[in-house]
């Protein structure tokens, strides 16, 4: 007696903020039985945090970690530029403080855009900043601007937008 089996594979779309999932289907045929193998490759959200304040670096790093991402830190704009100099840096998101020594957020953002960095750059400003300062920061090449203090609730909508793009 010959028994033919049927195998089903069901895929669920999972809403996860920080996993980019690629599914690769490999099909292997063995006689009358088909085996389907699914290989999932997961990529975590990769974030560069640029801030001269060690406290902010610690807090922002923790926020990114709790939403499932990984982060690298730069203590000022010049470090952020150096990180991108060899052209191999690839960040999904850059959190850019505005006021920093060596090279501030405006100058750093302009420089990174000149270097053809296409990461989403989110400026982090103080509530005390004047409107024209914020505008100048946006015009330097930011995608978005957020006011301190940063929280998970402020960052998540941007990450959702990034994931949907």
């Amino acid at each position: 007696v010959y028994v033919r089996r049927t195998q089903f594979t069901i895929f669920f779309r999972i809403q996860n903020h920080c996993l980019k999932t690629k599914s690769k289907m490999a099909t292997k045929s063995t006689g009358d039985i088909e085996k389907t193998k699914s290989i999932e490759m997961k990529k975590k959200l990769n974030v560069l945090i640029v801030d001269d304040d060690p406290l902010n670096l610690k807090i922002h790093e923790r926020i990114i970690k709790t939403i499932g991402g990984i982060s690298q830190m730069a203590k000022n704009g010049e470090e952020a530029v150096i990180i991108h100099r060899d052209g191999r840096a690839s960040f999904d998101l850059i959190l850019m403080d505005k006021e920093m020594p060596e090279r501030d957020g405006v100058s750093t953002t302009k420089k990174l855009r000149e270097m053809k960095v296409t990461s989403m750059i989110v400026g982090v400003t103080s509530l005390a900043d004047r409107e024209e300062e914020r505008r100048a920061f946006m015009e330097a090449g930011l995608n978005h601007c957020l006011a301190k203090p940063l929280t998970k609730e402020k960052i998540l909508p941007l990450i959702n937008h990034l994931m949907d793009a």
Partner: protein
Amino acid sequence: MQRQVALIKQSLFDQGYLDDQFMELEELQDDANPNFVEEVATLYFKDSARLINNIDQALERGSFDFSRLDSYMHQFKGSSTSIGASKVKTECTTFREYCRVGNAEGCLRTFQQLKKEHATWQDRRGLGRQHVGPSKERDK
């Protein structure tokens, strides 16, 4: 013991020393990172001690470099905002306003108040740590 710590913390909120941002930090703490808030607070007090010292020295010199003072206070305000130190943040804002108009006496007065608020919080934090002991013991 836990109750004492909770009461101390609640009093800091009730009296306006801490705001919602501190609660945001508490939400970032979990079993994998049980000391996160303590680490952040330690970092804050270390950095704020440095800034207070810098400002003290700048004011003692007598010649008011308002631009430099404003820069120090900008940093202080930034970290106070990040940790939720509400009263300290308010004094930082007032100080910066006095810097903008070049009011030396206002700066001096506000700075004294700022140091007082900062010290009160630090003292109460010290009380809380005495009650609880090292972080590991909190989970027992």
